[in-house]
């Protein structure tokens, strides 16, 4: 009878009757307990930006303003400046002197990352942050640029967990941005990141490999 069959459906979702609890107990990092953890994020996730440096500490940004130009929300502000020849900030001729991102405007479309010719700006996996005032939301270069160990800086209003700072280069290394199959699996960068570099994704034959296993659905 149609009226009563539904009761079996709702009841059997319960853990005690063979159902499965799907909730991930992330609780904002305010009260930490053993359950409080983020779900593992896929590599390509667009999160908070970082400004990368070469392994020798030089900044990658050359102040070309491509990211600012391509941003649909116009939330990036860059001003370049000529390097001091004695004490250069970046290996090129110019460097990003002012670099600001307004996170109250950023839509995380990652066009800036695609546009950057030197892979200076990439995105970490961190998306758990919130602000109590507008000032915190405007990140300057001081906050965006990675530390000496190559790891992103952690602001008090951000909730970093294990793995969030890794693979910041994932979106760009996922695939060939030109969409040419022959370039798949090739990074095509002259300089390497110091920390959390992601190996490029494999080329198409591996991507399209036949399914190995399909998880049986617990019901």
């Amino acid at each position, binding site marked *: 009878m149609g009226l009563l069959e539904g009761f079996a459906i709702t009841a059997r979702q319960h853990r005690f009757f063979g159902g499965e609890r799907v909730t991930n107990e992330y609780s904002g990092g305010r009260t930490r307990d053993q359950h409080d953890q983020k779900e593992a994020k896929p590599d390509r996730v667009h999160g908070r930006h970082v400004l990368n440096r070469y392994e020798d500490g030089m900044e990658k940004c050359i102040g070309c303003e491509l990211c600012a130009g391509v941003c649909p929300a116009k939330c990036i502000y860059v001003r370049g400046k000529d390097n001091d020849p004695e004490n250069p900030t970046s290996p090129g001729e110019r460097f990003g002197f002012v670099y600001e991102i307004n996170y*109250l405007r950023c839509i995380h479309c990652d066009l800036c990352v695609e546009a950057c010719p030197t892979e200076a700006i990439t995105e970490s996996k961190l998306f758990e942050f919130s602000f109590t005032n507008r000032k915190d939301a*405007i990140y300057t270069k001081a906050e965006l640029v990675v530390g000496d160990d190559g790891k992103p800086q952690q602001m008090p209003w951000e909730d970093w967990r294990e793995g969030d700072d890794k693979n910041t280069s994932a979106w760009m290394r996922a695939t060939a941005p030109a969409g040419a199959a022959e370039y798949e699996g090739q990074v095509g960068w002259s300089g390497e990141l110091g920390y959390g570099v992601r190996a490029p994704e494999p080329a198409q034959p591996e991507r399209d490999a036949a399914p190995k296993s399909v998880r049986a659905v617990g019901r």
Partner: protein
Amino acid sequence: MDLLHGCPTGDSRGQATVFASVEQYLPLVKKLADDGYNMCSDLTAVDYLTHPGRALPEGVEAKRFELVVNLLSLDDRKRLRVRVQLEDGQSAPSLFDLYPGTEAMEREVFDMYGIAFTNHPDLTRILMPEDWDGHPLRKDYELGQIPVQFKQVNS
């Protein structure tokens, strides 16, 4: 040049187009409705203020506004676009009696471009508040951008 019900036709990237003046507009659409174009899938307008020199077939005089009506024949699976040239301040007849579904679309065009439709049953603003000044999609209407906040601005 082919004529369809006395109106010049065109072809835009393989899509059939017919050009009508305001006077021809309603009779033309009536005939097209009889021809089997039983659905008006879209009605919109374009303001050609800053792009006057567009390609038009002979005999069609470019005016500031253009009313674009996309008709669809469900039986023949055909689409036809009617383009109507309008001066600023000129009003067009409403298609409401032929296609009641154009009611909201015409209101939207009125709201966004200020093109009035005669015989429209309820020509009021639809998207903007009633007391709004101006018609936002006109080319002479500013986007209304404000500067983005940064801590250190030099622009």
